[in-house]
């Protein structure tokens, strides 16, 4: 099994030799996943708070739907988003198929249930008396929400890390909606799939290492952030 050692050596060459194809794929990955995370956090954090904090009819049903969404297969998301974004589809005039923003839509759909479900869990696990106390102290609804979210911040960070992990590693949506177009929508994962299909196993492993190195960098940043946020 020379592939793994060869792959490791090749990964170092790609990263430190500044291989343009690798960096193009890395950029596509970073760009689409950042966009997807931005959208899923903007939507998912308030939804998760609402689901975890509120008391309303049908809450359990919504919770079940969200939890089921955790099992959405990426290939299915890819197909459905393709059907919408295809020029023959209802949103075809947006011209987003085979573009990174189009890919980000699919990835946001993948990330959203993760963010919502884990945010709801984090908020639920807080001491119920926190809300009461805040209200008796005269907090407005907005202050209540922000303080609750702040208290749940470690859980929210875990939600974001989890969602991010799914988004940067998925390949089904990137293939179907992104199209694996060289210099444009080829992400690290679709590049790995391509190299594997070509029988270039060492190159595939090298690209996998590149993605892992990048994930490590992101997580190191998050650890710093977590430390900074711990009083």
């Amino acid at each position, binding site marked *: 099994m020379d592939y793994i050692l060869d792959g490791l050596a090749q990964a170092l060459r790609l990263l430190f030799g500044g291989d343009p194809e690798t960096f*193009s794929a890395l*950029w*596509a990955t*970073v*760009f*689409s*996943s*950042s*966009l997807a*995370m*931005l959208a899923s956090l903007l939507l998912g954090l308030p939804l998760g708070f609402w689901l975890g904090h509120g008391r309303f009819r049908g809450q359990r049903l919504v919770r079940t739907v969200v939890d089921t969404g955790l099992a959405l297969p990426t290939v299915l998301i890819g197909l459905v988003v393709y059907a919408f974004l*295809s*020029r*023959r*589809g209802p949103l*075809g005039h947006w011209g987003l*198929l*085979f573009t*990174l923003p189009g890919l980000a839509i699919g990835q946001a759909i993948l990330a959203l249930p993760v963010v919502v479900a884990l945010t709801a869990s984090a908020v639920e696990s807080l001491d119920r008396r926190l809300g009461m106390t805040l209200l008796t102290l005269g907090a407005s609804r907005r202050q209540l929400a922000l303080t609750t979210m*702040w208290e749940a911040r470690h859980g929210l960070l875990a939600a974001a890390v989890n969602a991010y992990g799914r988004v940067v590693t998925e390949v089904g949506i990137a293939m179907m909606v992104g*199209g*694996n*177009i*060289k*210099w*444009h929508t080829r992400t690290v994962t679709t590049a790995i799939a*391509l190299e*594997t*299909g*070509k*029988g270039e196993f060492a190159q595939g492993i090298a690209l996998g290492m590149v993605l892992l190195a990048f994930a490590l960098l*992101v997580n190191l*940043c998050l650890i*710093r*952030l977590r430390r*900074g*946020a711990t*009083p």
Partner: protein
Amino acid sequence: MLARSAALICCLLALGLGLGAAPAPAADQLMMATTTSTEDTGLLNYLAPLFQKDTGIELKWTSTGTGKALELGKNCDVDVVLVHAPGAEMKFVDSGAGINRRQVMYNDYVLLGPAGDPAKVKGQTMAQALAALRGAKATFVSRGDKSGTHMMEQSLWKKGGGQVPEQEPWYLQAGQGMFSTLALAGEKKGYTICDRGTFFKFEADNQGQPPIVVLLEGEPELLNQYSVIEVNPAKCPQAKQALAKRFGDWLVSPQGQQLIAGFKAHGKQLFTPNAGK
């Protein structure tokens, strides 16, 4: 501290967005759907820059099985297709989805199997060979993914007089690309049908000692014809048919044909140009 964390998050996101926005598209862009073989062999990586130099048009492509490539054309998601399944292509053109189908080049398929050839297919015709495989219940690995190669294999079974195998225990449908299918056939010491280009690559990867070898080749019906088809602008108003036509013209021009003939991988010519023949 909240401000600091927020600033850090913003930095990360800005980094991502800024980097992604860097490569700006400038030239005219032509979107093509094509088959895995044209990408995996490196042919498109070799042709696209030359085409751009000549015409200023940037060729973007997504490579997939022929079935899906034609579906993308039918749905107006691409401007041009370069595929290899004449039967499906005819339907594509007849349905009005595509126009101006022109043949560009060919390579050929070979029947591979273990060197010992337990089903004794060597020296037979393709039809006899498949009948022999069926009779011997020899392990056969199929692409099983509606690719051009898979469609070719199905039509060969039919020509061999009989049903295309489906659930027979000796008939394995990989549902994967050619290279993975070859690897599977090699592990199982089975027979399979493969385009010659991918087999060259497989041979080179196995240091010239592949677990399965060419047993049957050179029959006219094993020809693997590639054609370029423009997406019909009457059906797809956004399709850039003028650019698509220029790409087709360029491929079938003496210069394009010469470039295709000059393309080599592992020291061997992979495609034979045959435009207008």
